[in-house]
């Protein structure tokens, strides 16, 4: 399943399928991007980050793609599991060093994993 984060706040996928969550960011000067996962009643949890000098980065079951030309970021989750159910936020920052200083969060996408 695939979503455009700003226009489709809920994405429902079958357990075991791959999911793609999309994010359109606003600031062309942003140098650093993070995907966070937020479960109900909890704080955002870091998933993966990418700097503007890269267009792809892979983690465990997750891949982030960055297209600076169209200011688009996506998070791919492979073989989704029930524990992946959460709200996913992208965040951008002009500070390429990292951290959480002055992050601008995008609108979240609620990922629902169907059994």
């Amino acid at each position, binding site marked *: 399943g695939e979503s455009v984060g700003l226009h489709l706040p809920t994405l429902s996928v079958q357990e075991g399928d791959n999911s793609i969550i999309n994010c359109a960011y606003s600031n062309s000067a942003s140098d650093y991007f993070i995907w966070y996962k937020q479960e109900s009643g909890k*704080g955002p949890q870091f998933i993966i980050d990418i700097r503007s000098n890269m267009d792809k980065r892979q983690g465990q079951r997750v891949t982030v793609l960055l297209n600076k030309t169209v200011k688009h970021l996506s998070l791919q989750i492979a073989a989704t599991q029930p524990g992946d159910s959460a709200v996913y936020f992208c965040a951008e920052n002009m500070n390429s060093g990292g*951290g*959480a*200083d*002055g*992050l601008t*969060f995008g609108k*979240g996408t609620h990922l629902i994993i169907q059994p």
Partner: protein
Amino acid sequence: AAGVIQSPRHLIKEKRETATLKCYPIPRHDTVYWYQQGPGQDPQFLISFYEKMQSDKGSIPDRFSAQQFSDYHSELNMSSLELGDSALYFCASSLGMNTEAFFGQGTRLTVV
């Protein structure tokens, strides 16, 4: 492993009252960040501190103030509370400003 501790977890205040939220960073972390998340909204950056000095300032109202103490814990002071201040307030911490930040569980503030 120790995480970011925020207290209280829940707080109910009346309009025009004051509130103080506390954040205890992960041991050895010297940087703290405060975010506000309204119902169904994305987190909004308020303010950050590095080594007890204010590092960056976001959309923090003038009615709010914050500081970081010598033991690196931080407090967010909120005065003249308004209904619109009802939100989840998250604190995050990191070791230095350019490393992964870890968020606490948040304080849910309800203003009635």
